[in-house]
Structure formats: structure tokens, C-alpha cells
């Protein structure tokens, strides 16, 4: 079995603080891999190491077998590793459609001459991208919002727009940082369905999520981080009853 994403004894230190230590994880092809753990466990730091936002202190990150440790974030994204952000990072003064088109940035390859003279190649490519951007918006149920400013969308819609922006890039693996955080129960249900449909398309999904019910419902694998270390990993139903996991979440029993 080849792992889509793989880390090898990954460690990350900020000064004297060990944000991550000895994290070795294998994210299987076509899996929907959830990463859970209490606040401050190092989940987002781990995502940042995977996507080139942080350079790990030691250890390696591999994507489809080749090493991507320390690669620039834009290069990692170009390989097909796409992410969303915990605090949602939309481009507020661009329209929803343009936000999604920006996600397809690397698929727009027209040269400058073609762009300046609106050559047929450029027109064809932009039309295709517009169609696909609209299809991505349709996929997350936001097609009717295409002409609104992203900054004007309510929270839940921004989350879905971020998903559409990731999808237009036809990523190999999608990393979602707390997709269901702060959304209403109705929106949570919609998001859960969208995530499952992304997975059903054959895209590998890695998600950080606090909502344990959601994780148990859709994840195929679960890894639990606590204090920057992996304390458990495996099938959702096994992890759920793991005593270390229960201790990390609920605290230690008093002696």
C-alpha cells in the first residue's frame, strides 16, 4: 500500500517548546483520515508542516513517495496538496467566483501575449475555468452566490466556498482544518455530506476535527495527537475506546 502523505519522525520546536515530537503517520490513498486531539495538541502545527507553512525541526514529509520537507507552501500546493484554514482565509474583496478561480490559478496557463490581446486560447481557457468554478460552487451549493463579495458571505458559506476553492484545483489530497467548527447543526450536516462526496470522488481527505461524532460518522482512519505526540491511531471504533484517548480528553482518574 502506498501512502499518499507520510511523515517520518517529524518534530517541530518553537524555542524550547516541543510542538510536535516523533510524529510518524501514514495517510493511505483514498482514505478519509481524521486527526483529533485536545486543544494545543499540535494538530494545526502538523498541518502547517505538511503544507509547507512551517519547516519541521527534524524528520521528513513525503508525498506519494517523494520528499517535500521544507518545500515552499506554493510548491506543495502545486503538487496537489491543498488545504483550508482553521480561521477561514477567504479573499474578502474578491467575488465568490473569483475566489474559486484563484484556487484554479495553476490551471490558467495562458501567456502574456494571449492575455493582453484576449487571444482565442486565453478565452477558451478562461471559459473552461469559469465553468469549472461554477461547477465547484454548485457542488458545495453556492452557485447562486457567485457574484457576491466573499467578505459578505456568512460564516458557514465561507467555509463551503473555501472547499470549492480547493476542489477546482483537482487536488490529490485535501487537508481540512476543522471544517465543522462553529457551524450550525444544519450546516454541519451539509458539510459532512460535502466532505463525504469529496472522498467518494477518490480524493484523499485529511481533516482536523473536534466534533467526535462527525469523525466517527465519516472517517476511515483516526489519529489522535496529544502534547505533540501520537497517542493512538487506527479505525474510528478502536480509537474511541482506547484508554489513552479517553484519558487525554477526560483527564486522569484521581488515585
Amino acid at each position: 500500500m502506498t501512502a499518499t502523505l507520510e511523515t517520518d519522525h517529524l518534530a517541530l520546536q518553537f524555542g524550547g517548546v516541543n510542538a510536535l515530537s516523533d510524529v510518524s503517520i501514514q495517510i493511505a490513498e483514498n482514505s478519509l483520515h481524521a486527526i483529533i486531539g485536545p486543544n494545543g495538541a499540535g494538530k494545526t502545527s502538523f498541518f502547517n508542516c505538511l503544507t509547507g507553512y512551517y519547516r519541521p525541526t527534524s524528520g521528513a514529509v513525503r508525498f506519494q513517495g517523494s520528499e517535500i520537507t521544507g518545500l515552499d507552501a506554493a510548491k506543495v500546493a502545486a503538487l496537489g496538496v491543498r488545504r483550508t484554514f482553521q480561521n477561514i482565509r477567504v479573499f474578502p474583496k474578491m467575488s465568490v467566483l473569483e475566489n474559486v478561480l484563484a484556487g484554479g490559478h495553476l490551471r490558467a496557463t495562458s501567456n502574456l501575449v494571449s492575455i493582453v490581446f484576449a487571444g482565442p486560447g486565453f478565452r477558451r481557457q478562461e471559459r473552461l475555468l469559469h465553468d469549472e468554478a461554477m461547477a465547484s460552487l454548485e457542488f458545495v451549493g453556492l452557485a447562486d452566490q457567485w457574484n457576491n463579495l466573499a467578505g459578505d458571505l456568512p460564516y458557514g458559506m465561507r467555509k463551503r466556498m473555501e472547499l470549492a476553492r480547493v476542489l477546482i484545483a483537482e487536488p490529490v489530497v485535501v487537508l481540512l482544518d476543522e471544517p465543522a467548527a462553529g457551524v450550525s447543526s444544519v450546516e454541519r450536516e451539509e458539510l459532512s455530506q460535502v466532505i463525504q462526496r469529496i472522498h467518494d470522488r477518490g480524493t484523499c481527505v485529511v481533516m482536523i476535527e473536534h466534533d467526535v461524532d462527525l469523525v466517527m460518522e465519516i472517517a476511515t482512519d483516526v489519529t489522535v495527537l496529544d502534547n505533540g505526540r501520537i497517542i493512538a491511531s487506527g479505525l474510528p471504533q478502536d480509537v474511541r475506546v482506547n484508554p489513552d484517548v479517553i484519558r487525554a480528553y477526560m483527564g486522569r482518574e484521581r488515585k
Partner: protein
Amino acid sequence: MSTENLLRPDRINVSAFHVVRKGLVVAFVVAAAFLPQMTQNQYYLGVAFQAEMLMCLALGLNIVVGYAGMLDLGFAAFFAIGAYTTGILSTKEHWSILASIAPGVVVAVISALIIGFPTLRLRSDYLAVVTLGFGEIIQAIAINLNQTGGPTGIYAIPALTIGSVVVASNTGYYYVFFVLVVVFALFSSRLRSSRFGRAWLCIREDEDAAKAMGINTNHYKLYAYVFGALLGSITGSLYAPALTAISPASFGFSESLLIVMAVAIGGLGSIWGVIFGAAVVEIFPEVFRSFAQARLLVFGVALVILMVLRPRGLFPERAFRGLGARIQSRFGPTHVTSPLQVAGDAGKSPLDES
């Protein structure tokens, strides 16, 4: 539905408002084209072509500040490079003005790369300080070099000749710069609706998130800087013959600031905004001439009032869209056609294709 509309789904929303808008644009351009026929007053024409020149510079800076969001306080440097290259080549080497544009562009682009490559990774305030320094350096070079004529500058720059036509009047330069404004505006608008424009706006809005789109932010910042330098130096190359004499005093910090002002007052990133902003910045001080000594004071007060009333500029990005929506909500239902309906089978979700 024409392909043009498919390219810009935000234009599909066909309404009376859009027809009116298009009419206004055409009327404005036609009126501007016939301005020299409406007045023979050389003073008015002089101010008008100075305004056009500032529009060209502001359109160049708009790519850097308006689109990519990098505050450049030394933009006059590229203007100076174009003007001096043309000035030197036409007086000392007897090049024609048109032929001297290209070397000016080459020098400007090379300087932009040299300055931009190490510094553009800096953010906001730091970048502003570095570019300000660059502007000062170019002015200092112009003052101290023999080839640039020192503090007196270069004079007796020959007139611009296009084929057998010699451009030697205010009217002539009015039309030269009129064409330049139109070309620069179209160029900016093409870039804006391409991957370049989107990448620049992403960088302006959120640089870290831009990287997650696969945008090589350092490259695109450099592109913005280079395109700005390109437009700045072409303007400079045509400014030299229009004024027939250039001196370092015209390319100082105050000129850079004037260009930034034009962009900010008009509306960052908005082509029409920038054009009107430049007109305001150039024409206001002339209108206030009756205040004599106090004219710049009145100008300053007017600018402050303007920024209080319209903090995002005269015509900010998408200003017309908001206005259109308001008009439509007052006069009946909106007729927004989704590009899905226009584009036929685009309604398929990506799911169906895989």
C-alpha cells in the same frame, strides 16, 4: 450571448443600468477625444495633458499598489528612468523619441528587478521605506551625474515624430497621452481579468492564503513591480519631448506622492477610479488658483473632505455593481442570469465527471 459575456460572468447581468453605464463610458471617451476641438485655450490643454500624464503614471502604480497591495513610495523613479533615457539618447545620440522608448523600458525593468528581487518579500511598511529610498537614490543620481545634466537637467529635447508627423503642440501631446491612457487602461483591465490580476488581488487580500492557491507570491509581486515600471518608464519617455526639458526636481518624492494620491483618491484597484483620481489631483490645484498663496492649503482641505466622504476612493472596485444592485432593487426584480444557464452543461457537478 457573445463569448465576451461568458468570459466575464459579472457582465451577464444585462439591465438598463448596464446600458446606461456603457453609454456613459462611450460619451466620456468621445468627449475627452474632442476636448481640443471644444477649447482653443492653451492653458486648459496644458493642464489636460498633464492630467493625462498623471493618469498614465497612476495606472502604472495602480498595478503595484491597487492590485498587488504593495505600497510603493518611489514610483517616480521609473518615470525618471524613462524620461532621462529618452532625454539622453535623443539629445546626445540623436535617437528618435519613439526608438528611445525601448531602451528606457529595458533600463526601468532591469532596475525594477534589481530593487524588487531582494526587497519585495518585505511587507507593507518596510517595503514603503525601501521604495522611498529607491526614489531618492534615482533623484540623487540624476542630480550628480554629468550625463544627466546635473541639477539643471536636460533641455532642447527634440519633438516626438511619428512617421512624418511632428508632434509639437499641446493639442498634439494631448492626443498622444490620450491614446496612452486608453492603451494603459485596456492593458490593466486585461491583466486584471487574467491569472495575473487574480493572483495580485489574492496577495493583497491575504498573502499566506495566496500561497495555498499555488501562487508563487514572490514571482507575482515582482511581476506587478515590473509592469508598473514598464508603464512608468513609457510615460517618462513621452513626457521628455512633451516638456522639451527635464530636471531632477520633477522626479522627487513629491511626484511619487502625487501618484500615490491619485490612486488612493480614485480608488485602489479601480481603473476608472484611478483615472478620475489623477484628474482630481491635477485639476484641483489649478481650479484653486484664485486662492493664490492658499491654493495648496485649499487643495489639502479638499482632499481631506473627499477622503472623509469617500474613504475607499471616488470609484472603488465594484462600486458600480453596488449602485446597479440598488437601482435594480428600487425599479423592480433583478434579472441575474447565472452563467450556469448560459454555459449549458456546466451545471454538472465535478462528481459526475469522475
